[in-house]
């Protein structure tokens, strides 16, 4: 099972800045292992973010997003105490959802 994300959401003015770290290999499929065998592609394809359960962002990623991905975005109207959820799905169908409270 995938490891948890680290999500930080900090309110400033009328928005909250959200910073996310995801634990994922983001394997491109273009590398070879020590034995010369191709390492199959394995990467996050879709990321969504929710404010209090309502989707505010959908992103699609390719394999060139760096390993253990970082994502930063600003959610309008989010204030301290609101819930920010982030979810990802990778090309193998593995998924992970985590949530944090805006501070």
């Amino acid at each position: 099972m995938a490891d948890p994300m680290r999500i930080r959401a900090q309110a400033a003015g009328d928005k909250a800045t959200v910073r996310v770290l995801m634990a994922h290999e983001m394997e491109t499929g273009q590398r070879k292992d020590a034995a010369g065998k191709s390492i199959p592609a394995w990467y996050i394809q879709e990321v969504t973010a929710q404010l209090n359960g309502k989707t505010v962002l959908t992103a699609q990623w390719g394999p060139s997003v760096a390993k253990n991905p970082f994502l930063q975005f600003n959610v309008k109207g989010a204030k301290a105490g609101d819930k920010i959820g982030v979810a990802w799905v990778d090309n193998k169908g593995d998924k992970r959802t985590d949530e944090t409270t805006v501070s």
Partner: protein
Amino acid sequence: MRSTPTAQAVLTLLAACMAAAPTVAQQKSAADGIAEYRAMLADGNPAELFEAKGEDLWKKKRGPKNASLEQCDLGKGPGVVKGAFVELPRYFADTSRVQDLESRLLTCMERLQGFDPVAISKTAFGQGEQLTMEGLTAWISAESRGLKFNLPQAHADERKTFELGKRAFFYRGGPYDFSCASCHGQPDKRIRLQDLPDLTKNPGNGIGFAAWPAYRVSSGEMWSMQRRLNDCFRQQRFPYPGYASDVTIALGVYMGVNAKGAESIAPALKR
């Protein structure tokens, strides 16, 4: 994270210098460019992912004895994690040895959880229980973030190990005649664009010994000091150092004692 207009103006200026001016300006802008790159990465160090995992692994019941590591003595008494990292390696009476963080964790994993430390030592980096070590060292070092290194040298074995570490540091050999000191024996030197800390003294807060474990950007892996030393010896063109072997612990004592007073930023972010 974003370039402010001022920063962009500065960058434009630097770019202009780079095009027109000779070597000195070029070098300066390269160094500035790298500094800018590092600053952009400072916020959101993936080491955090490993810290979280490490804390979980510390508290979780695991191994043949189905026990947690919460009673592990890292030098400040059973279960005391805060501040332990900046006093390691140190002498442990219960093993009659000077141990660094990794070798001490092997002791705890053996005695409390029933793991086989020899098997873990032989496991390749990034696999099996070595992944456990990555998480644990990340979290334990994070629990001493901001504290100053202060390795004990009261015990005769600690002083002896320092002397051995010093000799290991200057030990030249291999096809390139390199020692640790070849790269880390003088201040203000670089390999390519990488600044090299002078490890014969305190190179400053969060530099050198005070910056490991670290998340390695190049490989996307968490490296403890053991792995850092392993790769140093590889690039030194030496044979393969055993995990938690005497030479690695002795070097840890030498660098750690030299770093007295340096503030730990571990787990850091490194190229």
